[in-house]
C-alpha cells in the first residue's frame, strides 16, 4: 500500500472522528472509531502499514479535535506495541486478536488522556476517571470492533493468515 493512500484515509478518519463520532454517547462516552479502525488495519494489513497511519491520524485528530497532537500520538502509540502480539502469532483467531488489541489500546489511549488532563491541572481523581470513561470506552470500542473488522476483512484479506479466520 502506498503511504499516501493510508495517510489520506487516516486524515479523513480523524476528521470524521472529531466532527461526527464524538457526538455519539454510549455509556456516557464517545466511541473511538479511529482507534478501532487502526487496530483492524493493523491485524488485516500489518504493523508496517499502520504506523504511518498512526502518525497522520494522531496529528490530524490533535489539530482538528482540540487536543494536543503530541498527546494523541503518544496515546495511539501502544497500538504499535500490541502489534507485536500479531507478529508473534500467539492468538490465532484474528477476531479475538482485534478485540484484545482494541481493549488494550483503548485502556492505554484513555489512560494517557486522563494522565495528560491530570498533569495539566485541576482537581481530578484517577479512579473516578477510570470508572467514568476509561473502562466504558474500552467496552464500547470492543463492541464496535467486530463491525469495523468484518468491513475491513471484506475489503482486503489478511496477509498473516492467508485465509479468513474468525
Amino acid at each position, binding site marked *: 500500500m502506498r503511504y499516501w493512500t493510508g495517510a489520506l484515509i487516516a486524515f479523513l478518519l480523524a*476528521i*470524521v*472522528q*472529531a*466532527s*461526527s*463520532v*464524538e*457526538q*455519539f*454517547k*454510549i*455509556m*456516557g*462516552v*464517545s466511541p473511538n472509531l479511529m482507534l478501532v479502525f487502526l487496530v483492524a488495519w493493523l491485524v488485516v494489513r500489518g*504493523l*508496517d502499514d499502520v*504506523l*504511518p497511519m*498512526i*502518525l497522520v491520524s*494522531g*496529528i490530524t*485528530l*490533535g*489539530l*482538528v*479535535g*482540540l*487536543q*494536543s*497532537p*503530541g*498527546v494523541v*500520538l*503518544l496515546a495511539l*502509540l501502544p497500538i*504499535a506495541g500490541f*502489534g*507485536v502480539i500479531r*507478529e508473534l502469532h500467539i492468538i490465532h483467531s484474528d477476531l479475538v486478536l482485534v478485540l484484545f488489541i482494541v481493549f488494550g489500546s483503548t485502556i492505554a489511549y*484513555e489512560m494517557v*488522556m*486522563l494522565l*495528560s*488532563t491530570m498533569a*495539566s*491541572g*485541576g*482537581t*481530578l481523581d484517577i479512579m*473516578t*476517571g477510570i470508572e*467514568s*470513561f476509561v473502562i466504558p*470506552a474500552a467496552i464500547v470500542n470492543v463492541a464496535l470492533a467486530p463491525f469495523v473488522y468484518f468491513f475491513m476483512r471484506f475489503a482486503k484479506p489478511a496477509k498473516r493468515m492467508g485465509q479468513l479466520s474468525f
Partner: protein
Amino acid sequence: MTARTLAWTSFIAIAAFALMAAARLTLLDPVENVTLNVTSPVQTTLSTVTRPVADWVNNITDAGALSDENRALREENERLTNELARAREQEIQQQTTDDLNLVRQQFPADVFLDADVVARDSSNARNVIAIGAGSGDGVREGMIVVSEGRSLVGVVTKTSSDHAWVTLITDPKSAVSAIVQESRADGVVSGNYDGSLVMEFVGQGAALKEGDFVVTSGIGGRYPAGVVIGRVSSVQTAEQDLFQKVEVDHLASLSKLEKVLVLTSFVPRTLESPQ
C-alpha cells in the same frame, strides 16, 4: 519486529514528545488556527449531517433519562427558566440595594459577541469547544461564554486570531464560584468526567432543595455575579461529612451547542492578597 518498524515507532515517539513541547511553547497555535480555518466548514457539515443520527442513537442508548427529550423544548425551557431565575434574582437583589448598585456599576451594559461552535474536543477526558471568533474579533482569554438562553457555558482559555477555545463548565478542570439563589449558600461548581456538575463546599447548615437555582457568585472576579448555571438536582447530606454533596443540572444543552455568546464587556479580575 523489523528495523523499519522500530524506526517508525521511534520516530512517532520522538514526534509525540516534540509536538507536546511545541504545544507547550504555543508554537502550534498558527497551525491549529489554519487547520481549523480549513476543516471547520467540513466539520460543521459533517456534524450537522450526523447530529440527527447521533440524537437517535443517543436516545436509544441513554435509557435512563431522555427518550422524550426534545431539543427545541429544552432550549425554550432554558430561556423561560432563565427569565424566571433572573426575575427571582432581581427580587432578591432588590433587598440588598447596595449590592445591586455595585453590580450595576461593575457591569453597566452587557455586550455579547455571537459565535458558531466550530469544533469539539474529541477526547472523553475533556470538555472543550472551539468557536469561530478569536482575538481578531476582540475575544480575550478569561471572557465568559453563555448560551443563547444566557446560561453559563464556560470560559475562554485560549485564543488565536480567528478562533477561541472555550473550556466548558462541565470540564473536570472547571471550577466556578456559585451561590444557591434561594438560600444564598455558596460553594464551588465543578465539572466531572461524565459531563455532570457538582457543587462542592456547601456547608451542612445550608437549606437546599431540588429545583433551587444555582448562579455565579462573582467571588474571585473571574465570573460576573448572577449568571445562571443550573438547578439543584439532588442534595446528599451525611452527618459525618463536613459539606453537603449537591448535584447540579446545567441549563444549557452543552453537548449540542451550535452557537454561543461571548460576554465581551466583562473583563475578569485577578484579586491580589492583602498586604
